[in-house]
């Protein structure tokens, strides 16, 4: 069984701050983290059994459709959502935008997502996450990228996938890549790890740690295009320890959210999707329960095939 904390007592991950960051990540395992854009959505997410909500002004599907510069959400919205629910609240900062992260830490959010969904603020440097008390989650497409983020202080890694599409294909690619690259390290000899670190463009100490443990030194979650209960079950079976669901719950058409505040039918649709995906994330190995959960879902996000997106419009290529 994987345990990301008790095996870290004799290494750099044993500092109190990092242990507390990893501790909260541990508490989020086996659950669903839902993107929410207002208080009502946050309440629906909590009521459906989300382990955490991500407060943002526009979900990735809307950012993709509407364009423009996507930034940290307005602190007023984040505070309203923090006040409305008892579960941990996350919020996104732009890649490299440490001042946004400082604001989010000041607000007291429980986790900061340094996210490629927002428009990057720095083309070379990610945020020095060791400088913060608030834990960070970062996206990765492969093991080298995951380890670079961990070296910078990320306490949780998630696959990037292709956000806002409802197409799970890239989340699968990224998870399979990370898992395959971890497996490959475990069969290397000690003397081969130096070159492996060079090829992965990641710190040798972290590469060695992964080679010995056969897993990342922080929890490995999945995000990007997960839209259905079966998508959640798929990612969990591929090795994700929790799933983020962005546009898959509260979106109707590509750029139009369900009106959960005024339309009871649309509200019921969002509730049904949220509940079903929570059940699937826990019972991911039980097709009967995933089938029952899927059956209860009213409608679904229309989605956008990731293969139809022009290279320049991909969000996953942001960050390095």
């Amino acid at each position, binding site marked *: 069984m994987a345990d990301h904390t*008790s095996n870290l007592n004799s290494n750099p991950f044993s500092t109190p701050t990092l242990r507390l960051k990893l501790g909260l990540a*541990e508490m989020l395992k086996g659950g669903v983290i839902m993107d929410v854009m207002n208080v009502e959505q946050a309440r629906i997410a909590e009521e459906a059994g989300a382990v955490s909500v991500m407060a943002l002004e526009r979900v990735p599907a809307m950012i993709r459709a509407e364009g423009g510069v996507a930034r940290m959400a307005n602190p007023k919205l984040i505070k309203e959502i923090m006040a409305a629910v008892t579960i941990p609240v996350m919020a996104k900062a732009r890649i490299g935008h440490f001042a946004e992260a400082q604001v989010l830490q000041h607000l007291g959010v429980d986790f900061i997502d340094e996210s490629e969904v927002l428009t990057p603020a720095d083309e070379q440097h990610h945020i020095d996450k060791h400088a913060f008390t608030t834990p960070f989650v970062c996206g990765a497409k492969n093991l080298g990228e995951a380890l670079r983020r961990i070296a910078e202080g990320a306490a949780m890694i998630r696959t990037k996938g292709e956000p806002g599409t409802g197409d799970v294909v890239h989340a699968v690619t990224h998870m399979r890549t990370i898992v395959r690259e971890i497996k490959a390290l475990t069969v290397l000899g000690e003397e081969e790890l130096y070159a492996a670190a060079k090829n992965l463009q990641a710190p040798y100490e972290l590469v060695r740690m992964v080679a010995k443990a056969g897993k990342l030194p922080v929890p490995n979650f999945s995000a990007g295009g997960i839209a259905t209960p079966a998508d959640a079950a798929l990612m969990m079976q591929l090795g994700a320890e929790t799933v983020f669901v962005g546009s898959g719950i509260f979106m109707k058409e590509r750029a139009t959210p369900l009106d959960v505040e005024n339309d009871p039918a649309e509200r019921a649709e969002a509730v049904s999707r949220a509940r079903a995906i929570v059940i699937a994330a826990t019972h991911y190995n039980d097709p009967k329960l995933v089938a029952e959960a899927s059956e209860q879902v009213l409608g679904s996000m229309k989605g956008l095939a990731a293969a139809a997106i022009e290279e320049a419009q991909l969000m996953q290529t942001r960050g390095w």
Partner: protein
Amino acid sequence: MNPHHAASPKIGVLALQGAFQAHAAVLSMLGAIPVEVRLPDDLDGLDGLILPGGESTTMLRFLELHGFLDRLRDFVHTHPTFGTCAGAILLAHAVQNPPQPSLDAIDITVERNAYGRQLDSCIQTAATTLPGGPLEMVFIRAPRILQVGPAVTVLATRDDHPVLVRQGDVLAATFHPELSSDQRIHRLFLQMVQAHQAAAVRPATGSPASAPRASA
């Protein structure tokens, strides 16, 4: 684990969500057999149960399905059970901030998220009633035990509030012993399981707080 008992105890870990893997890892290290519990029938044949940390609201959503809450209530009132953080909230007599259903297995009143958010999470080392010196306690968005009933023994405190309590076969902690290398609390729980098993083979010596109800 115990030379007097050939079979290792089978300890369930509620695996709906949360830190169940960390608990299972400690149980394995101590020679017990961890069993992930996701459905009511998974409780069959277990010698004890751990309710881990995580989000109690999430766990309750699952317990409301498939008659799980009633089965779990029967189990925790008749078998050794250990709850940490969210697990302690589930075991409590009453819950505040906000009020929510609980199993009423130990006579404590618990306030959720009482110390604040993640920025208020902390690691403290303090003296307790357990032998072996000061104990490291990892608090993550921790609840606070506001009241304890007369049958409850307080084993450790933080700022005069109980953080580790026991009533008969039920043990509850508002911190996370599964995130520390100190295994004394899991050892204590496994001793409680052993004592319960020994009492079961010698009838009429049930521990004081496990109500003499038929086992589920």
